[in-house]
């Protein structure tokens, strides 16, 4: 790939703050996103498109829930677990929420230690994040099998409105898929960090891009987004 020719004005343009900054950054035939590599900008744009996908799911869930004349199942009871003979409502989902938030915290710190060139701590935190993610997916698998055993199907269930099953499997399934992909990439990035690929700027196996520690941050953006989506699913599907 050939590098574009740097003109003398390349980086010398003024960078005003606030609203004038938006106009200045977007105008005059230059790159719009200053101080941000194309990798990070593209991850943000991908996440924006993913936002629309998940929002479409949640809005269609709202539409079917509003339109059904059959009562919606009591989510609080459906996802209750019995500990020592006492039924605690929604406890599994609460634990999953805390696990995912913890993974977001470790991810944020992995990014920080990556930029500080602290390979060991960064890789450990990345692997801890991956472990939390895998735990989350495992608990989701448990939740799915419990509901399937209870007779919940995409086309109906014994507790109430048939739309409950289709919304549940579609939304949580798509989210769980995102978490699973994230876990795989977290492990890949952790190996890259640990091997020193990012220090040596070694080309990646897939794209051949030179390694750098911004990769950890871009990975982090994806992971935080997965957590972000869960915040909305938790609120609208499990609590509403």
């Amino acid at each position: 790939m050939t590098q574009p020719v740097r003109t003398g004005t390349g980086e010398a343009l003024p960078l005003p703050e606030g609203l004038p900054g938006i106009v200045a950054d977007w105008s005059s035939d230059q790159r719009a996103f200053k101080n941000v590599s194309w990798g990070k900008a593209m991850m943000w744009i991908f996440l924006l498109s993913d936002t629309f996908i998940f929002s479409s799911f949640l809005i269609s869930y709202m539409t079917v829930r509003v339109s059904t004349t059959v009562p919606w199942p009591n989510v609080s009871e459906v996802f209750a677990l019995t500990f020592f003979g006492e039924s605690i409502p929604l406890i599994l989902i609460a634990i999953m929420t805390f696990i995912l938030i913890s993974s977001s915290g470790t991810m944020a710190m992995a990014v920080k230690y990556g930029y500080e060139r602290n390979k060991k701590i960064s890789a450990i935190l990345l692997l801890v994040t991956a472990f939390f993610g895998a735990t989350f997916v495992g608990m989701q698998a448990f939740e799915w099998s419990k509901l399937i055993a209870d007779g919940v199907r995409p086309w109906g269930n014994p507790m109430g409105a048939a739309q409950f099953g289709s919304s549940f499997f579609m939304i949580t399934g798509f989210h769980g898929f995102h978490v699973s992909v994230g876990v795989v990439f977290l492990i890949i990035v952790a190996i890259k960090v640990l091997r020193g690929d990012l220090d040596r700027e070694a080309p990646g196996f897939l794209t051949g891009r030179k390694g750098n520690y911004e990769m950890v941050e871009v990975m982090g953006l994806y992971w935080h987004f997965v957590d972000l989506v869960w915040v909305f699913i938790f609120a609208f599907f499990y609590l509403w």
Partner: protein
Amino acid sequence: MVHAEGQQHTAHAKGQQQHPISVYLWIWGLLFVLSVFSYLVDYFHFQGYLRWSLIVIFMFLKAGLIVAVFMHMIWERLALVYAIVLPPLLLLVLLGIGALEGDYTFITRGIFFGPRS
């Protein structure tokens, strides 16, 4: 804020986000507390508008903290922030369409499939 921006400018020039660890730990703690609150909404069986407004408030606080701090949005330039944060507002249109459509379907189902008077 202006001063902090100036100090971090060299790090930003290389596209790096470097912030003290206490920032992340604080936000992590806040997210935990907010999650506990939203769980308690269900645990104490709040109902009606109280339940819905509390759920939405805690949800937006959590989402805001994640995007702003964990995803470093408050330290990015406004051009990127607006390019990412504003387009999802279009979803409000889809939300409105969905609500209208859902209500209409509910009413027609009530008329055609409901008990005959």
